[in-house]
């Protein structure tokens, strides 16, 4: 019925004017009857009744559901107004869309990184077990109850050391008679399972595994997609070896996850049975890993037996060996705090019995429980800082965008003064005018929001590509989900109201008489008075300041990246193909592995176009192993690093030799043990002497006793045969340590997985198929994995820097663009307002150059003010990003100079266009324009 009333409105209105007309007629009749002249009678009648238009308006107001109808009318009017100013509308919508789009895509990532819960049942009752101790770094303390470990700790000199790895006995202790947890389970991604050689129906591939305790799937409440999950009975020594595979793995290798259950599978040469397939949305407890295969915890004894330094069943008893990560589910009604209070003393008491001396007792790890709903924080640790940084930057962009739109609205409402004054004088209430203007701005921001959604979808795709490039598909996913969408919509509406309100209020405060009397030229004079111009100028100055700050940030990150790329690695990174082979995992025995690799190396080297081929324990970028190595007569130096390599390694990597020779075919397993040291090693160990011919000892690592002087513990007695120039070891950002290169096959430690390096004459990846063919001929069970170019590997190690440099540059460009649009708009507007004045000046003989300068002076003033604000701000805030920088200080003068130059140049060209237009005003046409 109400809708009908709205539709009937024009008819009712016509009837009402008829009725009012009739009233006037009756009043006139009466007045004439009283003896007035017809004219006077009419005049008096109108005076009595008042303005019929206002009465009609008031009748409408009483008659309808005002809001809906007004909204519809306001909307239609707003659309009409906006389409009459397409340039304005386009710019505003674009600016809003850019701001909202950038914010939404970054927020989607933040959401998926920091806020989203694990896809398991009731994630809120999950807790992660951690411990905390005093920092070892800062105290230089060596003694700690964690005497050996497999996993990671986070040692911050200020915050202390935290970690989530525990000895297995601690897990068993806390699991027993536990009144606060309904389930408790452990998992671990140890060396034994990180990369598995998996053979399914005769086909070999590499898969990522995770060890899980028997209670893992039950504790997480995971419902299998097929078969069953790993149960307690599977997790003991001697149980039939079973695994659970991920949904994606089942789809890929078993032709559908439903077929997975019951299939045989060979892992590292050992037969297993797939008992079930995990559901599609399940990725384990760490969003960064997403394992393919879940193995019962105790299978690590089987797998460990196959590799050097592998896991043994004795490690399950080691009270000082930290390796399992633990999660638990709170019993209903138990809080995190209660659980903490119940378990911390138990752990404390147990851990104190594992200490061997007073130094260890003085710094015992203390148990601390954390919420587990969002899973483990590997990804969070890696990405949250850059994400917050990016969020700040896009927040600034949104600020610029909003202030820009507000600016445009202000200018526009100033030029609409007369229109608004006219509407007010016709009896429109101020409230209605404000509402109309608000409708326009909200409509604009909704349009901006919609385009922003499209931009966000695209932005998320680009960001995913940028972020996961090189992080080996780390499971970093982000979707535009409902929550983000709600945020987006409220963001756009809020900014609509915010940037619409100020101009609306301002225009509703008009003094009607002056506003209506204003012509363009008088308006210009009013406009030009100092305080009136303030509002838009302040906004422009603010935008310039923010742009400079963002340009400085972009400059810092771009310089960091280029510093990283210019680092002299000490070897040639171009035209180098790298890939992994693990002969041991596919069943080769130590005795023949060396010969097998040797033959592969020869065959790779004979591929046409391959100049040299060699192999090493790992790639130089990822290297970082230490074993006790000493110069005879001295203690082993903990800083010494070693690097097992194959023949002609230095030649292949093009690391220059300063003295002696490279390893060659004469360095066989049974021949004399040799070594090559780098300059740094020679500088520390043999200062001022020739290292060639000197000897080095490599010691067997033994946990319980460390008799460095017992010659029986010497694993290798090596003679130094070469001195190599320093080459990067362990990453581009690392300082080059003292390194000993040694043949991989001269005894302890035995080789496992090897990285082959091929120096090619052309694009390295074009040789991949020849490589695969050779490997397949040699051993079809042996998969080639992690094929990459050396350059790609280096880029991957710098992907955070690449990401920051790319995104920051993009954001800075965006901010600069928006600012220039704002500057251009403001200056153009001012020029348009002053066309008459300029015409008069020129008619009176002002030169074009003078007019040009008059306008440019304003641009300079705005830019100078912006710089005056932003330079101190940049200097003050850039220290917050110093942890992201490399090879430079936070207050880098070059970055700052570049930012200033870029800004001044673009601002002048943005302001220069309207300035030139002002200078080319024809005096006569400008004056006629009035």
């Amino acid at each position: 019925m109400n809708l009908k009333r709205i539709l009937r409105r024009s008819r009712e209105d016509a009837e009402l004017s008829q009725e009012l007309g009739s009233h006037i007629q009756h009043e006139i009749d009466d007045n004439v009857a009283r003896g007035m002249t017809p004219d006077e009678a009419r005049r008096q009648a109108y005076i009595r009744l008042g303005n019929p238009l206002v009465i009609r308006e008031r009748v409408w107001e009483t008659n309808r559901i005002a809001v809906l109808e007004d909204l519809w009318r306001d909307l239609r009017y707003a659309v009409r107004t906006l389409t009459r100013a397409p340039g304005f509308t386009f710019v505003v919508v674009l600016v809003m869309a850019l701001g909202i789009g950038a914010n939404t895509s970054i927020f989607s990532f933040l959401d998926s990184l920091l806020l989203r819960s694990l896809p398991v049942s009731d994630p809120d009752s999950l807790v992660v077990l951690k411990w905390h101790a005093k920092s070892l770094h800062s105290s230089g303390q060596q003694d700690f109850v964690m005497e050996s470990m497999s996993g990671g700790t986070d040692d911050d000199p200020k915050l202390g050391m935290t970690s989530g790895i525990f000895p297995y006995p601690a897990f068993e202790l806390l699991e027993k008679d536990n009144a606060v947890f309904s389930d408790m389970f452990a998992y671990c991604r140890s060396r034994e399972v990180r990369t598995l050689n998996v053979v399914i129906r005769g086909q070999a591939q590499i898969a990522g595994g995770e060890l899980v305790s028997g209670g893992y799937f039950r504790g997480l409440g995971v419902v299998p997609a097929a078969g069953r999950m790993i149960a307690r009975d599977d997790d003991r020594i001697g149980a039939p070896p079973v695994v659970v595979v991920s949904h994606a793995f089942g789809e890929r290798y078993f032709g559908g996850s439903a077929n997975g259950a019951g299939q045989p599978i060979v892992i590292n040469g050992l037969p297993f049975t797939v008992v079930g397939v995990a559901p599609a949305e399940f990725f384990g407890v760490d969003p960064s890993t997403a394992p393919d295969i879940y193995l019962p915890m105790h299978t690590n004894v089987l797998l460990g037996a196959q590799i050097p330094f592998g896991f043994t069943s004795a490690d399950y008893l080691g009270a000082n060996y930290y390796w399992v990560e633990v999660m638990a589910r709170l019993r209903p009604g138990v809080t995190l705090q209660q659980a903490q209070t119940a378990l911390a003393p138990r752990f404390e008491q147990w851990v104190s019995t594992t200490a061997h001396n007073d130094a260890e007792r003085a710094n015992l790890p203390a148990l601390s429980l954390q919420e587990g709903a969002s899973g483990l924080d590997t990804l969070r640790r890696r990405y949250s800082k850059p994400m917050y940084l990016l969020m700040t930057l896009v927040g600034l962009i949104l600020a610029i965008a909003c202030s820009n739109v507000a600016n445009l609205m202000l200018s526009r409402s100033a030029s609409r003064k007369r229109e608004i004054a006219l509407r007010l004088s016709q009896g429109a209430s101020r409230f209605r005018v404000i509402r109309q203007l608000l409708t326009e701005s909200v409509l604009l921001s909704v349009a901006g929001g919609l385009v922003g959604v499209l931009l966000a979808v695209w932005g998320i795709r680009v960001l995913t590509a940028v972020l996961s490039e090189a992080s080996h598909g780390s499971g970093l996913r982000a979707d535009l989900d409902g929550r983000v969408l709600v945020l987006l919509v409220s963001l756009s509406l809020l900014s609509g109201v915010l940037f619409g309100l100020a101009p609306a209020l301002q225009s509703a405060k008009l003094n009607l008489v002056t506003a209506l009397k204003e012509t363009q030229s008088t308006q210009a004079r009013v406009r030009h008075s100092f305080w009136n111009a303030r509002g838009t100028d302040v906004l422009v100055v603010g935008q310039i300041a923010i742009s400079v700050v963002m340009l400085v940030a972009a400059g810092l990150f771009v310089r960091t990246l280029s510093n990283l790329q210019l680092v002299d690695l000490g070897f040639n990174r171009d035209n180098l193909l790298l890939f992994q082979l693990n002969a041991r995992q596919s069943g080769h025995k130590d005795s023949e592995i060396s010969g097998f690799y040797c033959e592969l190396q020869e065959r790779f080297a004979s591929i046409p176009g391959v100049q040299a081929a060699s192999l090493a324990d790992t790639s130089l970028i990822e290297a970082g192993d230490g074993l006790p190595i000493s110069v005879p007569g001295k203690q082993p130096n903990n800083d010494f690093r070693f690097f097992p390599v194959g023949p002609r390694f230095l030649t292949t990597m093009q690391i220059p030799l300063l003295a002696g020779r490279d390893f060659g075919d004469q360095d066989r397993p049974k021949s004399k043990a040799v070594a090559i040291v780098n300059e740094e090693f020679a500088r520390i160990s043999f200062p001022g002497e020739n290292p060639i011919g000197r000897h080095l000892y490599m010691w067997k690592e033994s946990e319980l006793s460390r008799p460095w002087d017992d010659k029986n513990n010497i694993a290798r007695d090596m003679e130094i045969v070469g001195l190599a120039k320093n080459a990067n070891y362990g990453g581009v950002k690392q300082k080059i340590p003292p390194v000993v290169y040694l043949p991989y096959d001269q005894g302890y430690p035995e080789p496992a997985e090897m990285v082959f390096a091929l120096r090619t004459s052309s694009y390295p990846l074009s040789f991949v198929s020849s490589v695969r063919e050779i490997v397949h001929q040699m051993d079809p069970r042996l998969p080639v994995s992690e094929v990459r170019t050396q350059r790609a590997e280096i880029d991957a190690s710098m992907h955070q820097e690449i990401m920051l440099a790319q995104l920051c540059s993009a954001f800075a460009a965006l901010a600069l663009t928006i600012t220039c649009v704002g500057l251009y708009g403001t200056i153009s507007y001012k020029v348009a307002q002053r066309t008459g004045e300029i015409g008069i000046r020129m008619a009176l003989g002002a030169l074009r150059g003078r007019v040009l300068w008059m306008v440019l002076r304003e641009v300079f003033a705005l830019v100078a003010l912006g710089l005056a604000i932003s330079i101190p701000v940049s200097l003050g805030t850039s220290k917050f990003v110093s942890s992201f920088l490399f090879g430079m200080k936070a207050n880098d003068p070059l970055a700052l100079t570049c930012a200033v130059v870029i800004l001044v140049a673009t601002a002048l060209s943005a302001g220069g266009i309207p300035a030139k237009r002002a200078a080319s005003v024809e005096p006569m046409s400008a004056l006629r324009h009035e």
Partner: protein
Amino acid sequence: MGERKGTSSEMVQGTLEMLILRTLITGPAHGHTIAHVIEHGSEDVLEVEQGSLYPALHRIEHRGWVTSYWGTSENNRKAKFYKLTPAGKKQLTAETNRWRRVVAAIGRVMGEAAE
């Protein structure tokens, strides 16, 4: 300019509506007559602000207290006549009672004060 204030307070608005309903009890009338009847009836003490009359008429029409039709006036002009509905009669009774109570109450207060 802008919004007119003052005439739209609820008391005055309600009172005007009551007066209109009272006027219509003697039979249908158009807006001009209604205004005159109220003014004459009050011996010109009450002056109906004509600008408020029509919004009030439309309001009570939408509440279903009166219906309207187009007819010919005593001056032989086309005019819109308003006629009381049963609901309007009931409303008038209620309003009148309420009014009497209020007047009596005010009278008591004023009377006491005078003594």
